């Protein structure tokens, strides 16, 4: 699964730490999600999308391999 959290963060001008705090996870978790090393749970994905005020599909997209 791919995501454009990094872009969305830049648009909203918030840091990884800010986003981490908003969805109550560690900064490392946001970092690994951004670099596609960790796939978040549905709950966390929805929380992240809510922070950006967008539907989940706009932040996270399936890849062919999924």
């Amino acid at each position, binding site marked *: 699964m791919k995501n454009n959290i990094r872009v969305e963060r830049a648009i909203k001008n918030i840091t990884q730490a800010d986003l981490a705090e908003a969805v109550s996870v560690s900064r490392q*978790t946001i970092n*690994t999600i951004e670099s596609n090393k960790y796939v978040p749970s549905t709950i966390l994905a929805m929380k992240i999308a809510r922070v950006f005020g967008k539907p989940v599909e706009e932040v996270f997209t399936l890849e062919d391999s999924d």
Partner: protein
Amino acid sequence: MKTRFLFPYWFRYLGLACFLVHIPIMLLFKKYHDMDSPDPGLFSGSHVFFIFTTLMVTIGLFLIAFSKEKIEDEQIMMLRRDSLQWAVYFNYIVLIVVLIFTEHMEIGHIMLLNMWTLLLFFIIRFQWAIIRNNWSAKREG
């Protein structure tokens, strides 16, 4: 995040204390008692001491292994699950290898060590996974 079956964060220090305190106790006991010829019988002095120190190490390792992290989130849960699985695999491989290459008189000793090795392997693997995770987060900023 809601977590089940985990102790509060500060319990790790309690566990570490249990583990560390047993070392001087053990050394002192060894100095004043002859460990090679323990008192015979159940619940004799040396048997109670053996139970006490063994439990202290076990409880200590147990608390270190299963305390919450400072920020307990779903990725930490995943690392914990992976590490636990890895530790069980690794422990059984070691156990099987040791079983093959030791004579059966020593099996009691191996079983006793096995009480701790699973927890030890888990703690090492889990802490390593966290450190590695933090490194990569730092590197990518």
